[in-house]
């Protein structure tokens, strides 16, 4: 079956090359248009391969939204087919800021900023202290990555 498909695709390609007089949109043009078509969903991305097949990946809130995106992509001139490689959205993970493991991770993240302290009050992490802008960025990078839910960032940026 695969073989038949392959040869069919090949035949199509060859005939398209031979017969086609109209200028076909090149891959970059198709890619640009396809990207624009799905741009409203930041969780999705699309890649056009050399055969003009659109590979749609990422996540959509519903199967209907996936189908709508596929239809929109099929309407882009030059798109031969759309491969649905989307996955259902994973729920946001929120870790417990009070577990010993996560308290240690917060400590690791803040070790190099002795003026910064962290407290967990009623399940919410609060960080305070005086820092530079660059330090504030590094701290946010590390604390955000721990996914401890909404936390109070009371850093005073000098």
């Amino acid at each position, binding site marked *: 079956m695969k073989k038949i498909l392959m040869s069919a695709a090949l035949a199509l390609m060859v005939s398209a090359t031979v017969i086609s007089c109209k200028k076909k949109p090149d891959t970059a043009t198709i890619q640009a248009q396809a990207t624009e078509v799905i741009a409203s969903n930041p969780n999705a991305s699309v890649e056009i391969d050399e055969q003009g097949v659109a590979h749609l990946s*990422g996540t959509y809130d519903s199967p209907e939204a996936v189908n709508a995106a596929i239809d929109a992509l099929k309407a882009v001139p030059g798109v031969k087919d759309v491969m649905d490689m989307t996955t259902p959205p994973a729920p946001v993970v929120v870790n417990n800021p009070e577990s010993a493991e996560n308290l240690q991770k917060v400590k690791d993240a803040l070790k190099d900023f002795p003026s910064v302290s962290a407290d967990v009050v009623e399940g919410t992490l609060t960080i305070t202290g005086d820092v530079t802008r660059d330090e504030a960025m590094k701290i946010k990078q590390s604390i955000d990555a721990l996914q401890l839910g909404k936390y109070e960032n009371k850093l005073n940026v000098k």
Partner: protein
Amino acid sequence: MSELQNKYSGVISAAQQAGIGNLQVQERDGVLYVSGNATNSAAKDAVWNALGNIDPNFTASDINVNVQITGLAAGTNLTVNTESTNLNIRQEPSTEAGIVGKAAKGEVVALVEQSNDEWWKVKTQSGVEGYAYARYLKA
């Protein structure tokens, strides 16, 4: 697009442009969670610079950006990117663990494995192997 997505649209588009893989943008309890994987530090930095344009002090509580550099092959060269001090190489992935070696700012170390998001196992030029805090390693 939601209000939060609009507010931080610059971060989202920077992530898209930087080719952040498995990009996820979700809201929960008034926080916009933006997560995904980068193949190098430059892509991750692009996202954070975009956040800096919207939240200049990096203290906003309504956005959580979690871009991890993933998929680095063992042996990948990493540059020590500390403020000025030496980077501690530790026996275990924790600041509680003993220090087995140090790497100077700007020194190139080899990746052994990305043990987790926070700690990567590396080998220094002098042959010391241990765990370093990934925030200080530039890929």
